């Protein structure tokens, strides 16, 4: 996180040096310009852990293997969702934006190798995942195609089916994308690709996970 702030500070410094560069377009962003965007996103899946149901063996040997009642392998499947962003330009090249993302990933646990031959199943739990946070964007160049890099952090909230149990954590993300301005250049298309590193996520093995997030939508500058 600290390194991210250093990177952000560096970007601010660079932008102040480059701030005199003109933004080509009839509605070029200036300090105080707002930008709102929204669209669909795809959040990548991840391995959620494996564990077997074990029973103590009836053996005098301490090295005897346990009896495996069944095995499980879990995964959170890729999910689609929606996002909205509201940004403000603090310089012609730099904007700060707030982000809200919502997805409905599915936690899948595949059960196999039942000791008494119960049929293999994949048991599922549909989650609700909310990410609310902020990002700093640095835009390169000008024209219709405007590439940018971004980084930030967010609060993560995930609920199980029936909202019966809650998991909260934090995430930091870094990535980049491109904005393609249309017509009068107030409206454009926006593509984002991010790597989201999450302190917690619904899974059966708790560890920091990196989730790929891709999004596409419309952007409006005013």
């Amino acid at each position: 996180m600290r390194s991210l702030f250093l990177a952000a500070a560096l970007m601010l410094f660079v932008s102040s040096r480059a701030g005199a560069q003109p933004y080509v377009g009839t509605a070029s962003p200036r300090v105080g310009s707002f930008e709102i965007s929204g669209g669909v996103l795809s959040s990548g899946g991840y391995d959620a852990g494996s564990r077997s149901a074990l029973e103590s063996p009836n053996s005098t040997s301490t090295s005897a293997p346990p009896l495996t009642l069944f095995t499980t392998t879990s995964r959170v499947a890729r999910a689609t969702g929606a996002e909205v962003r509201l940004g403000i330009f603090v310089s012609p090249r730099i904007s700060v934006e707030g982000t809200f993302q919502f997805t409905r990933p599915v936690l899948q646990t595949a059960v196999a190798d039942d000791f008494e031959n119960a049929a293999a199943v994949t048991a599922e739990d549909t989650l609700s995942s909310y990410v609310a946070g902020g990002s700093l964007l640095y835009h390169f160049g000008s024209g219709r195609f405007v590439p940018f890099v971004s980084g930030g952090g967010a609060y993560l909230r995930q609920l199980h089916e029936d909202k019966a149990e809650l998991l909260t954590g934090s995430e930091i993300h870094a990535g980049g994308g491109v904005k393609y301005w249309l017509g009068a250049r107030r409206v454009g298309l926006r593509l984002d690709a991010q790597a989201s590193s999450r302190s917690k996520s619904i899974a059966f093995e708790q560890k920091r996970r990196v989730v790929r997030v891709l999004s596409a939508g419309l952007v409006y500058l005013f």
Partner: protein
Amino acid sequence: MKRAAAWILACVVALATAPTAFAYLKLGVRQGSRLITLRWNAMPIRYFITNRDVPNVTAPQLRDAVGRGFASWAAVPNVTISSEFVGFTGFSPVSGDNATVLGFSNRPELDRVLGSTSFTVDTVTGEIVESDVFFNSAFAWSAATPGETDRQDIGSIALHEIGHLLGLGHSMLGETQLFSGGRRVLGAEAVMFPIAFSPGTLNRAPRADDIAGISDIYGTDTFRNTTGSITGRVTKNGSGVIGAHVITFNPASGRLIGGFTLSQDGTFTIAGIEPGPQLVRVEPLDDGDIASFLDTSLNIDVDFRPAFYSRLVTVPRRGTSRSIEIAVVAK
């Protein structure tokens, strides 16, 4: 007596009425339509040890094994259990003398019973006022720390019987194999499984299933505030299945906790489960004598295939999951 396998039978005998095993691991008495859990209300539980040695196990060694057994149950987090060894006695462990006695007793006619626990209970409140445990000296016993080949470990069997003494019934978290002389345990994940491990094998620590059961009886508010329950119904051809063994499995911790459907409509509730998603598996009661688990007057159905519920069931903290229905099919 040397056996490949032996039964541990909880001879649940009350003076006023015969208690019925209900809920999951708990023992109880029926009061009209109500089921009342058996439990000790007065702590510490004061007990005597019969002053009788058997080959390889002296009365002081039995005292030590029983003390460790009580300590193991009392060490379960967030339960209130305490006990006190009062002294040795010349009395045998029999009901009705107002003294809780544990000791060896020679019962060769019970050739499958390693130990047995009996109770005197207040059938109105469910309070246990006396409980007696005998260990069958017709078997070969051992008090050796690492166990001894061909001898039953007194520490393991004492832990099981003290579980009964505290009010626990049998767990069915175990797998067995039939052979000419009875059943052989292949594996078990509960001290309260009714069939003992082979002589020389140790089973001295309560597992998740035992812990959930004892906590359900003696748990503090902390226990209730940090765990939840799963409730639901097992059906076959649309009708409730009675006597189905329902297992919850936490894919995060690996903990297995079991319960039973105990009414004609096939409903069950399993308490003491860690919050979070659980797998639920149902199986027939076919790894032991039905009488070891449930009232035989119940119409127990064992004619169905083991099955998993198709969804993960999320257990809320301090609450109960949505009710689920698990449909099973005949074998």
